[in-house]
Each structure stands twice: as structure tokens, then as C-alpha cells.
């Protein structure tokens, strides 16, 4: 019944042919289709995830990123560190307001940082571990006191980790802000939300850089079956869609632009292990799993030409990518078996449940299960809906789960999420390792423009992976298909920026 409807929808959409007409090309409206369904609209609750693509039109951050991935002013006009590097003073632009008319001021910044650190369902708590306090200096100036020297803070406060909701809206009703009425200071304001179905956004003229926003309206349609997205583009229902790797060729053949590259949007798929739960309390089991995993098979079967086999949660070319890690645990099932045998485990003695989100990680779990079976590890797959899975994953009660992430604007934040106490992707939290903490301290204390920054970042990435509980499976470039009438979005890692994006009429 349901499948029949989906198929019929796909066929009907496809029947309209590949016309470039419709879909808002004449109305400066982005008709956006995605299979994703955001569960929250408060950036504090959402965290720095792929879902921020839907939040960044509504919320602006203190800082933003340019195409060179350098930090640029946004709601803040600048920042200054003290000589010791453990305090940062941020100066806001004058006269800014949120979409509800309340002021963007130092109080609002402090309020949101306090909320990140104290709100029970905050997904950013771990990322802000090193921010100890926010102090209002005057209406436009706020100071952050840090636990240790840390030059990553402007990156943490940029785009994915630093979106600023209205203090008044969050104070009045945080649930309403998160579910039905998000209010920020971004380029678009919310006109309508239909939960789990769609959101309609309209250009907000009060945005500080409104002159650079040419798109008038964005309509995002959620929960669209992936197989219907390209037919939807062809029929003009959408003019912008986040598609799966399996659909890239179809979209390209139909004449749509494909934006896909690790310089834009990428994802990393990994297995999170809980070192506090058997059988992963034994480091030999973790080591054996690392040898048992074959990233090349994941990339080949699931990447559709956009996958990359990596033994670390970053794609090649990323500043935190470490060449040495690739050689540390190459695919070697014989070695995995040998490690398990030496540790006293017989064939099939080790068994565990692989958790995950249904309809997102099914194929990943299936390939992984077969790879582990080949070395004598028995697994059962248990996929559930996001809400139920999230209770176990974020509550750190699952033993193992497949999951993915899309990187972070602060490279250090990308590491702390995986390997630090409280990191949302650290299933073993509060576990963290001493070598990682030492390397983390060093990279935080290194200015981003220092020649030592790269090597120290990679040293922290290496220490984190080696001593952490993440087993990387593969990385891939996420794909967007769009009509040619919509100009390219700036290529900024993990950020769909609508600045400068225009429609060409008449095609």
C-alpha cells in the first residue's frame, strides 16, 4: 500500500519529463527536497550536525566562514584574545535585532552560551567544555573565559556551532522555539512549519547582510523518498535536492547540476563502540574490529563513485586527515582472527548488537555484519527510529552503533565530539584518553595561522583515533542536484550559504 503509493508518486513525477519549467524558477523560490526530517529547530538541541543546513537560513552566527574556510565577521564585528589566550572578547555589530525585533546584544550571547552549558538536551555541551563562563562587558561586548588557552573559539562560534537564537523566544518557550517557532537573526524568517513535512522561509530584510541575499523564498520539503527526488526535479516540483549517491548519475543524465565534493559537503560513516561495555572493555576486541573492517568495500558498494576508503573520520585533504593512520590498521581479516585467538576468544564467542537509525544505515550495517562475520564475530542488527536510537546513543547506553557525521567548522570541535568527555559522538563518554587530552591542549594553544597548527591538529587527530572508540568505515561527498537556473552555492565545507545565490530567469 505505502510502497505502491511511493512508486506511483515516482512514476507520476517522472512522467512529466525533464522539463526545466516550474519549480519556482520564475519566482526566486528555492523548492528544496530532501529525505531528511529534522527533529528540532533549536541549534542548541540540534548541535553541529548535517541538520544545520536547514537552520543556517534562519539563524546567523557570531562569525561565518568564507570560501577559503577562514573566519569572517557576521553578527560579531570582531574579536580579541588576551595575551595568555585564555579569554576572548567579542564585539557585536551595532543596531542588530532578531527576527522578533528584540536586540542582538551581549545579554543574548551570554544567555545562549549559558543555555548550551546548562540545558538538559543541549547537544553542544561537550563542544563548549573549554568555555567556562560568559561575561557581559557592555551591550555590544561579551567576554568568554576559557579553561585553557584556546584559539579555536572563533571557529566554534562560526556557522554550525555558534548559531544564535532569540533570547526572548528561547526564554519564553524553548520547546516552541525548537518545534514550531524558530527565531534567529539569519537571512530568512519562518513563515510556516508543518512538522516532519515542510518549512517555508521568506527573505528577512533586517538581516545584517540582506543586500547579498537574492533568493526571496525557500520551501524545504522533508521526508521525501530518495527515489522520487530526481523525478521531482524533472517535473519541477523541486529545483534543489539533496540526493543519494545512487541518484547522482540519474540526475546528471537528466541535465541537472551536481554539487558534490569534499570541499562542500562530506560525510563520514563509522562504528561507535562503547568501551564501558563488554566485549569492548577488552582493547584487543577493538583492535581486531579495526583490522576486520574493509573501508574499500563500503566505498565501492555504497559510495557510487563518491566514496573514499579511509581509516579515520576525515576525507583525504581535510586538515585533520593523517596519512599515518591509513597504514595503522589496514584491512587484514587474518590479523583480526589472530588477535582474537591470542586473546583467548574462540570463533563466534564474541557477539554484540549493531544499533543504528532505520532507513539510514541499513546497508552500512549489513556490509559491516558480513565483514565481522568473516573474522568470527557474531552480530545482530537492531535499527530503530531516530528518537529511540537517540536515547541509547546520546544516553551512552548502546554497546555499538553505526552512525555518521559531517565534520565541524572548528577542527578541534570535530575531534572533541569523537574523543572528548561529553562528545556527542563519543559513545564511550565519559571516557577520554590522556594522550588525546595532551595533544588537544597543544592544538588549542596554537594560533590557527601558526605553522605548527597543522601538525599539532594531526597529532591530536591521531592520538584521538588511536585511543578512542570510533572505527571509521568510509567517507563520501554528499550530493546536491539543482536546476541550472539557480547559481552555484559557495563551496564552503559543510555550509549551504545562500549569499550571492541568484536565479537566472528564462531558461
Amino acid at each position, binding site marked *: 500500500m505505502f510502497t505502491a503509493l511511493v512508486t506511483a508518486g515516482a512514476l507520476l513525477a517522472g512522467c512529466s519529463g525533464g522539463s526545466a519549467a516550474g519549480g519556482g524558477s520564475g519566482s526566486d523560490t528555492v523548492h528544496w527536497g530532501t529525505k531528511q526530517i529534522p527533529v528540532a529547530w533549536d541549534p542548541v538541541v540540534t548541535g553541529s550536525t548535517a541538520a544545520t543546513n536547514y537552520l543556517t537560513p534562519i539563524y546567523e552566527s557570531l562569525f561565518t566562514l568564507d570560501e577559503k574556510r577562514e573566519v569572517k565577521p557576521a553578527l560579531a564585528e570582531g574579536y580579541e584574545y588576551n595575551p595568555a589566550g585564555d579569554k576572548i572578547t567579542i564585539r557585536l555589530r551595532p543596531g542588530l535585532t532578531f527576527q522578533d525585533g528584540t536586540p542582538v546584544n551581549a545579554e543574548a550571547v551570554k544567555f545562549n552560551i549559558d543555555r548550551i552549558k546548562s540545558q538538559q538536551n543541549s547537544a553542544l555541551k561537550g563542544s563548549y567544555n573549554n568555555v567556562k563562563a560568559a561575561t557581559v562587558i557592555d551591550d555590544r561586548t561579551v567576554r568568554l573565559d576559557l579553561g585553557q588557552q584556546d584559539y579555536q573559539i572563533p571557529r566554534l562560534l562560526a556557522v554550525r556551532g555558534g548559531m544564535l537564537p532569540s533570547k526572548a523566544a528561547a526564554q519564553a518557550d524553548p520547546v516552541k522555539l525548537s518545534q514550531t517557532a524558530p527565531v534567529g537573526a539569519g537571512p530568512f524568517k519562518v513563515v510556516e512549519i508543518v512538522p516532519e513535512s515542510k518549512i517555508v522561509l521568506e527573505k528577512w530584510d533586517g538581516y545584517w547582510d540582506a543586500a547579498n541575499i537574492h533568493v526571496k523564498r525557500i520551501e524545504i520539503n522533508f521526508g521525501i523518498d530518495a527515489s522520487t527526488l530526481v523525478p521531482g526535479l524533472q517535473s519541477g516540483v523541486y529545483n534543489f535536492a539533496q540526493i543519494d549517491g545512487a541518484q547522482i548519475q540519474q540526475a546528471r543524465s537528466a541535465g541537472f547540476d551536481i554539487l558534490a565534493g569534499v570541499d562542500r559537503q562530506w560525510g563520514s560513516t563509522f562504528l561507535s563502540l562503547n568501551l564501558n561495555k563488554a566485549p569492548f572493555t577488552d582493547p584487543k576486541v577493538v583492535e581486531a574490529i579495526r583490522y576486520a573492517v574493509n573501508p574499500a568495500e563500503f566505498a565501492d558498494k555504497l559510495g557510487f563513485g563518491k566514496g573514499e576508503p579511509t581509516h579515520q573520520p576525515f576525507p583525504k585533504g581535510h586538515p585533520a586527515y593523517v596519512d599515518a593512520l591509513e597504514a595503522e590498521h589496514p584491512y587484514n581479516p587474518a590479523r583480526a582472527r589472530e588477535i582474537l585467538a591470542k586473546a583467548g576468544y574462540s570463533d563466534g564467542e564474541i557477539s554484540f548488537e549493531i544499533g543504528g537509525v532505520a532507513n539510514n544505515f541499513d546497508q552500512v550495517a549489513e556490509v559491516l555484519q*558480513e565483514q565481522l562475520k568473516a573474522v568470527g564475530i557474531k552480530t545482530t542488527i537492531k535499527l*530503530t527510529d531516530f528518537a529511540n536510537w537517540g536515547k541509547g546513543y546520546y544516553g551512552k547506553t548502546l554497546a555499538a552503533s553505526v552512525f555518521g557525521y559531517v565534520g565541524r567548522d572548528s577542527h578541534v570541535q570535530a575531534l572533541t565530539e569523537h574523543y572528548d568527555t561529553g562528545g556527542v559522538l563519543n559513545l564511550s563518554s565519559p571516557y577520554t584518553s590522556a594522550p588525546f587530552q595532551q595533544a588537544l591542549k597543544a592544538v588549542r594553544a596554537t594560533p590557527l595561522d601558526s605553522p605548527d597548527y597543522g601538525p599539532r591538529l594531526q597529532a591530536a587527530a591521531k592520538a584521538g583515533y588511536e585511543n578512542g572508540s570510533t572505527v571509521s568505515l568510509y567517507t563520501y561527498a554528499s550530493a546536491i542536484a539543482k536546476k541550472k537556473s539557480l547559481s552555484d552555492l559557495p563551496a564552503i565545507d559543510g555550509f549551504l550559504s545562500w549569499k550571492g545565490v541568484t536565479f537566472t530567469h528564462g531558461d
Partner: protein
Amino acid sequence: MIRTLLRLTSARVALALLAIIALVTVLGPVLAPYDPLKGSGRTLAGPSGKHWLGTDYIGRDVLSRILAGAPLSIVSTLEVAGIALVLGTIPGILSVYLGSAFEWLSLRVVDTFIALPFLVFAVAMTALLGNGITQAMIVVGMLIAPVFYRVSRAATMSVARSQYVEAASIAGASTAWIVRSHVWSKVLPSVAVTLAQTLGIGLVVISSLTFLGIGIQPPTPTWGGILASDLGYLAQKPYAPVFPTLLILAAVLACNLLADAIRDAAGETGRALTGAKTARTNRARRLAAPADPAQP
């Protein structure tokens, strides 16, 4: 009734289809040419001499998965029908005889279940009970049970008011005796029709739930699960969903044909089973009748 039924062409076609499906269900896992869970390097390959229906996204033989998936797909459907039958029919009959309090309560419960959005309830109950095949079967069975409740209650009410039942009651027959001797024979044909329809519905609903990731977990093959995953690779293998869809369609068609045949064979009264000629007349009358009695 069975003899009458077997003389109807639709019933014979339905039973032949169901026999084939039963055969596939019993022998499918044995007949599967490859391990249905084992992948290979040949992903999304088209039909060939080695793989008659091609391979899936991780290189598993599609024919083997369809054959191996038959028992779970069919047995889970039978489970759903059984749960719905028990949960719906017994309270439906008892609601007529157990007094107004039970009648009121059972009707309100049934009204509530009818009002619940099907898939939303399934998702919520799975969240509550856990995501497993048993839980999914219970949920679907609960949601289909009101159909059995309504059908059995209506049939029981009509027989409960008949003169021969009133006569039996006046003569001192107990409620249990009346239900055993008079009510069952009246209710059973209607329930049998509903059961046949439910088998068809159950198969599609189980497929829908598998499609949503509820119930059966990967890599266990089911027809619904195979169909769901095939839809993700339409660009590479546009014909792939046809194979599991044909099987689901055949099973649903067979159940519906059988349901129609039972109704035709049972006749209007349901109690006195009619001969094949009358059954064919019933069928002709049913097909000639307007879909909406209010329409001329």
C-alpha cells in the same frame, strides 16, 4: 460449503495461487541457489544465467533472497490474521451477550482503535514495545482486530434476534449453548471472508512496516524489505521492484479472490450454504449491484 467453493472458478484460481505460494513458503529456503545473506563483488547486476533475477546493492542473489524471504513474509501475515481474529471475533460475539457495560466498553475501545492513524500507531507502539517481529505482528493484529469485532458483532446481533434463538432461550437454553449451536454457524462465514481479506491486507501492511524499518531487521529477507531496498536503486535497476511486487500482488490477489468466492458460496443468509449455481448467481448479482446503494 467447501464443495460449493471448489466449483467456483475464482476459488480454484485462488487456491492454485495459494498452493504455489505455500510451496514457495515451505521449500523456498531449500531451493535458494545461493546464501541469501552473503554478498559478492557483483552489485546491482542484471539477470543472468548465474543470477536469474540479478543481484542487489551488496551483491546478494535476488532470487535466493525472495525464496528465503517467503516463510517470514507469509508466516508473519498468518500471525497477524490470527491475532486479529482472536482479538476481534471473541469480544465481538461476547459484546452481544455479556451485558451493556461490556458492550459499551468494548465499543469505545474499538472506536478508539479505528480512529488511530495506522502507521503512526504502529511506529508509536514499536517505540513502546521495542522493534521486533513479534511486536510488529501484535501491533498490526491489534489494528486489524476492530474489523473482526464489527463483522462478528453484526452477524451475532442478527442471529441473536431471530425467532429460533429466542425460542431456544425461552426453552431454557444457556447462552453458551446458544452461541455454540446457533451463533458460530452464522458468524463463521462472515469471519472467513474477513480472514481471507485480512491475509491480503496483512501482507501489504507488513511490507509497509518493513519499508519503514519496523519489525523485521536487516539482513533478514522479506518481500516487503526487498521491495523497499530496491526502490532506492531505481536509477541502476528500474525493473528490480517488479519481482517482489509480483509475489505480493499474487498473494493479495489470491486472498481477495478466495474472500469473494467464500462470500458468493455463503449466500445472503450466510447460515444455509448454497450450491454452486446459487453461488454463481450471488456473484452475478453482487457484480451487477451499484457500488454505492444510494446511487441510482
